């Protein structure tokens, strides 16, 4: 299975938000921990709705959580 082109900074953002656990983020956005694991590994591109819910959970705009192609911060 090829890696998805949609990347994210979820792991870093969790760490910066009081070391939020995967389970806590999952509960906040209404998915299972497995889905957060898959997102962090780059194994799954979320739906637009879930992407917005995750961005809202971190109080950030969508483009600061997700990126397309190469990581712009690198």
């Amino acid at each position, binding site marked *: *299975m090829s*890696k*998805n082109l949609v990347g994210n900074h979820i792991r870093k953002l969790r760490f910066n938000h009081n070391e939020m656990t995967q389970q806590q983020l999952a509960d906040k956005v*209404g*998915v*299972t*921990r*497995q*889905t957060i*694991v*898959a997102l962090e*590994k*780059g*194994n*799954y591109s*979320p*739906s637009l709705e*879930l992407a917005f819910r995750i961005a809202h959970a971190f109080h950030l705009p969508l483009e600061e959580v997700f990126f397309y192609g190469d990581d712009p911060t690198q």
Partner: protein
Amino acid sequence: MTYQEKKSIVSLISAILIFGFYCLYMYPQYPGGGLESPEAFRFWGSFVLILTVVSIVAHIVISIIFNIVFRMTTREKEPNFADELDKLIDLKAFRNSFFVFVVGFLLAMGSLIIYQPLHVMFMILIISGFISDVTGSATKLYHYRRGV
């Protein structure tokens, strides 16, 4: 390994064990005499119906035992809902499973066209049902481990 991965593995193993033990149990009961006697048809009919019931009951029991063991060993509560990733993986698993069963069904019909005995048709149907079940679980395991 997450809950869903473990559950897929348990489901895969239980499907193989249930089918294997059921076949071993039913094999000696195959009626003698003519291969296409009414008793043989009754045997195949009861084989499929009982397998369906046994399989559903065994899967429910195994699922309950698995959840209890999972809670005891990990002290984590199992997810009680399916999110968008679960639904997407379920759809892919169902697609593959359905495809395998349809191929098996067509092969079973093909066996009748080339004048194979009826028990060959029943065997192909039953085996394709089993392989489609295994394919569904294996697809879930693959996508939970490797992504979608």
